[in-house]
C-alpha cells in the first residue's frame, strides 16, 4: 500500500519538476511578498507626518508648544501659515496633514486664568494616519496642560510640586497592553502575522491547481490508472509531493517577519505546528479538488481568486467581525482563512492552546471535509476518464 502511494507520488514528483515556471512563482512570490511587506511596514509606526502651524499669538507659549509638537516623532514641520483656511489646499498638495492653530491671546488668556483652546485640525481622509495624529496631539497638549495646571496651583496656593501633581491628577488610568506590549500603533507586529497567511493560502492552493486538470487533459505521459486505480491511494500519492513542498514554504513565510523584522512571536508550540501543517494539507487538497472540478487551470485559479481575494478583510483579523453586518458573519466564519489566522493569533501571540480554539477547529475541520470530498470526487473522475479513454493519455 505504501509502495503504491509512493509510486503515484514519484510519478507526480516527476511531472511537478517539469513545471519549473509554476513552481518558481509559487515558491518565490510568497517569500518576496513577505520581504516587501516587512520593508513597507519597517517604520512600524506612522512617523513624520507634515504639520502646518498657524501661530496667531506669536508668544513664548505658542513657540514652546510648537517645539514640543515637533519634538514628537509623529510630526515633522510642513510649514507655517497665517490662516487655517489654507489647510485643505495643503492637504491636497501633501504639504500638511495636521494643522495646529494657536489663537491670538493664547498666552495672555492663560495667564489670566481664562480657559484657552488650541485648535487641532486632522486630516481624517486617512483613518490610520488620523488616529495616530490624534493620539500624538492629545499626548503633547495633555502634558502641557497638566504642567501648566501644576504651575498655576503652585503659584496660587503655594503648595509643593508633589501635592500640586496629586491635585491636578486626582486619579489616573494605568494601561497595560496584553499580547502586543509594543502596541502604540506598531503595524508590523499587528499585521504581519495575518497577512502572511494570505500567501500561505495562495501558495497551498496554487501548488495543486494544475494537478487535477492536467490528468483530465491528458498532460501526463502515463495515465494514473496504470500506477494505481484505488481512489484514496491515488489521492494520497498525488497530494504527497505538493504537501511536502508546501509545509517548509509556509514555515518560512510565517516566520520571515519574526526573523528579519523583529515581529514578536511567542515560542512556537506543538499546537502551532499542528494547525499550520493541517492548514497546508487542507489548502493543497482544496486546490487539487478545485482543479478537478474546474477541469482546466485558468478557471480553477479564478475559483481560488474568488475564495481568497476578499478573504483577509473578511476574516475579522483587522476589521472585527462583531462590527460587520450579521449577514457578513456567515462569510467571515465560513471562509477557510478565518480559522487559521485566529488560531495562530491565539497560540503564537496570546500564548493559548488548542483548547482555546474550539470554533476555529470546527471551521478548519469543515473545510477539510469539503476539500477531501472535492478531491475524492475529482480523483474518481480522473480514474474513470483514464479507464474509458486510455489512448488520450499516451
Amino acid at each position: 500500500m505504501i509502495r503504491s502511494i509512493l509510486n503515484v507520488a514519484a510519478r507526480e514528483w516527476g511531472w511537478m519538476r517539469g513545471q519549473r515556471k509554476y513552481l518558481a512563482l509559487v515558491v518565490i512570490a510568497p517569500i518576496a511578498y513577505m520581504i516587501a511587506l516587512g520593508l513597507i511596514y519597517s517604520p512600524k509606526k506612522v512617523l513624520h507626518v507634515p504639520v502646518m502651524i498657524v501661530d496667531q499669538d506669536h508668544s513664548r507659549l505658542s513657540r514652546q508648544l510648537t517645539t514640543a509638537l515637533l519634538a514628537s516623532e509623529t510630526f515633522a514641520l510642513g510649514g507655517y501659515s497665517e490662516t487655517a483656511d489654507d489647510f485643505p489646499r495643503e492637504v491636497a498638495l501633501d504639504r500638511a496633514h495636521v494643522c495646529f492653530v494657536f489663537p491670538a491671546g493664547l498666552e495672555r488668556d492663560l495667564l489670566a486664568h481664562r480657559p484657552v483652546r488650541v485648535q487641532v485640525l486632522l486630516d481624517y481622509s486617512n483613518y490610520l494616519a488620523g488616529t495616530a495624529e490624534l493620539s500624538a496631539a492629545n499626548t503633547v497638549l495633555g502634558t502641557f496642560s497638566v504642567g501648566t495646571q501644576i504651575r498655576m496651583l503652585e503659584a496660587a496656593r503655594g503648595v509643593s510640586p508633589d501635592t500640586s501633581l496629586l491635585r491636578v491628577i486626582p486619579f489616573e488610568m494605568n494601561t497595560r497592553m496584553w499580547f502586543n506590549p509594543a502596541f502604540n500603533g506598531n503595524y508590523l507586529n499587528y499585521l504581519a502575522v495575518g497577512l502572511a497567511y494570505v500567501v500561505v493560502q495562495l501558495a497551498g492552493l496554487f501548488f495543486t491547481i494544475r494537478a487535477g486538470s492536467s490528468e483530465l487533459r491528458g498532460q501526463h505521459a502515463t495515465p494514473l490508472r496504470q500506477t494505481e486505480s484505488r481512489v484514496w491511494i491515488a489521492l494520497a500519492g498525488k497530494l504527497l509531493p505538493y504537501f511536502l513542498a508546501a509545509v517548509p514554504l509556509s514555515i518560512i513565510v510565517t516566520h520571515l517577519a519574526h526573523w528579519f523584522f523583529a515581529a514578536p512571536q511567542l515560542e512556537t508550540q506543538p499546537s502551532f505546528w499542528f494547525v499550520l501543517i493541517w492548514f497546508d494539507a487542507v489548502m493543497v487538497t482544496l486546490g487539487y479538488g478545485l482543479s478537478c472540478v474546474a477541469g482546466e487551470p485558468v478557471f480553477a485559479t479564478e475559483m481560488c481568486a474568488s475564495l481568497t481575494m476578499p478573504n483577509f478583510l473578511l476574516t475579522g483579523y483587522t476589521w472585527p467581525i462583531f462590527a460587520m453586518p450579521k449577514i457578513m458573519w456567515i462569510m467571515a466564519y465560513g471562509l477557510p482563512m478565518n480559522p487559521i489566522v485566529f488560531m495562530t493569533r491565539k497560540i503564537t501571540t496570546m500564548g493559548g492552546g488548542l483548547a482555546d480554539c474550539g470554533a476555529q477547529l470546527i471551521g478548519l475541520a469543515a473545510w477539510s471535509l469539503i476539500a477531501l470530498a472535492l478531491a475524492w470526487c475529482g480523483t474518481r473522475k480522473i480514474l474513470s476518464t483514464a479507464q474509458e479513454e486510455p489512448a488520450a493519455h499516451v
Partner: protein
Amino acid sequence: MFNTWFQLCWREWKRILTDRRIVMILVGGPFFYAFIFGGVYWQGRAKHVPIVVVDQDHSRFSREITTAIAASENMQIAGWVNSPEDFLALARHEQAYACVIFPPEFERDALAGKKPRIGLILDADNILVNGSTLIGLRAIVATYQVGVNEERAEALGLPKAGALAASMPLAPATRQMFNPTSHYSFYILMGLICIAVQSVTRIGCGISIELDSVEKWKKDFPDRAVSRWEIFFSKVLATALLVLPVGGIALMLPFVLFGAPYRGSVLFIALAFTIFALSQICIGYGYASLCRSAVVCTQLHLFMSVIVFTASGFTWPYYAAPEWIRWLGWLMPLFHMNCIVRKSALVGAPPSLLLAQHLLPLIMLGVVAFAWGWWAVRKEMSENPAGGGRD
C-alpha cells in the same frame, strides 16, 4: 471606417462575453468585490467593543464611571468578573477585548487626594479595535478628572468659569476634517474598489490575450488583412468599453450606495478613471506577455494585489513611508488614481490642484503602459500564432 472598427470590436466583445473565464472576472469581479467590501465596512466604526469590569471598590464613583463606559457608543459591558486573571480566558475566546479594574478603596483614595489608579488591560492584538477602545476610555477618565478638579476648585471658592479654567487650562479643540465621523468605509472602500478593478482588469486581459492569435483573426476576417495596430487598438477599445462602465459603476457604489461623501468634480474623476482603466488593460497585456501563461499571470496578480495596495500608500500613509516606497508608489497608476479619488471625493480638492500632482503623472504612466501593451500584443500575436492557451 466606423463599420470596420465596429466589426473588430464586436469580435473582441464576442470572445470576452462568451468565455466564462474572462466574463466572470472582467464583468462580475468589480461588482462582487464592491459589494463584499461595502458589506464588511457597512457599519463604518468598531462600535460596542465588549469589555469586562473588575469592580473591587463597589463605590458610587466606580459605578458612575462604569455607567459612563456603558453609555459610550464605542464600548459595551460584556460582564463583571472577579479578578483580572479571568479576562485572559475571555480574551482568548473573543468574548472581551478590554478589562477595566477599579481597585479597593478607589473612591476613598480619590477623595483623600491619594491619586488612586484605574487599571486597564487591553487585548492589544488588534490595533483598530483597541485604538478606539483606548481613545474612548481615556476620554471618559479625562472627563472625570476634569470634573473632580473643577469641583475642588469650586470648593476652594473659585467661580464656575474660573474653576473650569483652573481644572483644564489648555485644552485641544480637535476637528477631524474630511471624515468627521471617522467612518472606516469612507476612507478605505474607494481604494479597495480601485485595486479590485486593477486586479480583475489585468487578470481578464491576461487570459484574453493568451487565448487569441493571428490565426484566429485570419479565420474571423478571411477577406481582409487586419494589421497588428488594428488588432491592438480594437482589443483595447473593446475591453475599455466593457471595463469603463463596469468599473465606473463599481467605483460609484461607495458614494451612491454606501453613503461616502463626494465633494469633487465628477468629470475629473471620470477622466482619471478612463486613463487608469486604459493603462490597466495595456499593463494586463504586458504582464501576460512576460508570463507567457494565463495561469502564471493570474497567480502573479493575485500574489501581487496585497503588496501593490499596501505600497500604493492608501492605508499606510505614503507621506509617512520610507523615501523609496514613496518613489515606488509614484510609479504606480494605482497610487495616482487613489490619490485623485480620495482627495477629490473626501478632501474636495479642485482639479487644478490635482492636475500637475497626480493627473499628469497618471497620463505619463499611461503612455508607458500603452507602449508596453502594444509591444506585448505584437509579441503575443507572433509567438503564439495558434492561440488557445499554453496551459
